[in-house]
């Protein structure tokens, strides 16, 4: 076999096979732009809402790592809210302390836990040399009003120490309704801190978006700067002959649209990220066994995409 087609690492070690990679989507790019805008304009909070399974948690992880790379001094935390019968200040602060990686047990008083949290956030920010603290709250639709009040206390205490807390509430579409209720109740102290900006987080919603995501597989490389894009790694001969995933985008999108119509799903087509990436992974992994310069361009991919989509649509 030509050296051109010899992969630089074993196939089992590739992040696509291990599902340890992250691919950007237009919604993630919009999320990223929103964060940049908030940090630049000192907008202290935004809510990002979307239907389940659209990849919101995945997006948090993506933008968190992206922020770490671009702003290494920034303090970044992520907490996940679980719905409890009765909101508990202890468990709320214990969750935040867990996000801040404070190792103490959560058996202390509420005041102690809050003090402990604020000191930890201040210490990390001081050590890093950036007065901006970013907090992502996943499943934020589970937050109750009283929990927003506790969060407001943290926000204000940090502000007293000249630190700026930027909170990104990420959750399901109920978040919008919660914002409306808070506005109707004149709870401006909450809305003005945590819900200034809004972003609708969507799945893949057009052929153009399909192509943009698929192009990331054609361009992203592993190992980094090796010249081995994800597409080339799995089908090196076909890639050398000119195959690019992005060129199959319209066909894949059409297949998803047909599945959507056949399943009689209401509303516009919106492909959850998880199913979209699964379709591409399946296509690449299976095509690797049949790699050849004449490999037909991702003919199998729409089929796999349809299989995933059908499973959801049913």
């Amino acid at each position, binding site marked *: 076999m030509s050296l051109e087609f010899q992969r630089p690492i074993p196939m089992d070690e590739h992040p696509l096979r291990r599902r340890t990679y992250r691919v950007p989507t237009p*919604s993630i790019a919009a999320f990223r*732009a929103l964060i940049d805008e908030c940090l630049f304009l000192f907008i202290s909070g935004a809510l990002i809402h979307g239907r389940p399974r659209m990849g919101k948690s995945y997006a948090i992880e993506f933008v968190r790592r992206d922020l770490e790379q671009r702003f290494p001094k920034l303090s970044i935390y992520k907490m996940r809210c679980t719905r409890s019968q009765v909101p508990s200040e202890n468990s709320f602060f214990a969750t935040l302390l867990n996000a801040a*990686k404070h*190792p103490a047990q959560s058996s202390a008083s509420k005041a102690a836990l809050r003090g402990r949290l604020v000191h930890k956030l201040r210490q990390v920010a001081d050590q890093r040399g950036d007065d901006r603290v970013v907090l992502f709250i996943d499943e934020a639709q589970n937050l109750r009003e009283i929990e927003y009040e506790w969060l407001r206390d943290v926000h204000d205490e940090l502000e007293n120490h000249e630190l700026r807390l930027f909170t990104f509430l990420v959750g399901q579409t109920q978040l919008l309704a919660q914002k409306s209720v808070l506005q109707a109740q004149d709870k401006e102290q909450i809305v003005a801190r945590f819900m200034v900006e809004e972003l609708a987080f969507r799945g893949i919603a057009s052929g153009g978006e399909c192509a943009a995501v698929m192009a990331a597989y054609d*361009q992203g490389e*592993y190992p980094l700067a090796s010249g081995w894009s994800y597409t080339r790694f799995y089908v090196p001969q076909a890639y050398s002959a000119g195959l690019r995933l992005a060129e199959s985008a319209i066909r894949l999108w059409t297949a998803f649209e047909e599945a959507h119509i056949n399943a009689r799903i209401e509303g516009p087509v919106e492909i959850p990220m998880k199913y979209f990436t699964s379709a591409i992974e399946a296509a690449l992994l299976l095509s690797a066994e049949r790699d050849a310069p004449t490999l037909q361009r991702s003919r199998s991919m729409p089929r796999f995409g349809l299989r995933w989509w059908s499973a959801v649509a049913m």
Partner: protein
Amino acid sequence: MSSDLELASTRVTQAQTTSTCPREDNWRYTARPEWSSGGESMWMRLSKFSYCNRLSVSELTDLFGASHPNNESGARDLRPAKPWDLRALASILDVSAADVQSGFCCDVLPIHGRSSAELRYCSACLQLGFHAAWFQWLTIERCPLHGLPLKLGCARCRSAIPYVLGHDLAAKPLTCACCASAWIPPSLSSALQ
């Protein structure tokens, strides 16, 4: 189309492997070594640590490996270094082994009877958030820096201040347990709080 432009600058990236161990090295208590200076006593260092972390006395003693409580209250004498886990102190307080050693009295003056079991302090140093371990030596009468006589007891109510890691240090560090007066000025305490 701005989102598409942004997308072009963001590529497929490999995610880091998530560890299955929830308590890695980066899980740390809050330590503020920059709030202390060389020669500072372990009483002052632990008071500041307590401010930041709000742990119970039993959690503090477990954390720093202190054995043999002085009495039924579970208080631990802060004069001798021997009962303490010096490595844990250095690691958790984020200071050098030498700083830990110099935070105790009996490393340099191993005669227990010649050091005070009550806090002895220079009021000017305390205003700066500083206390030296050797202020506890009974042979030292004045602060060499300020020339002030070393004092005993709360400046306001005169209650004795035991030189121990006990409930008061854990629950109300740098504050009198009897009259609730702060031993450090508001400007400094607001920085700490």
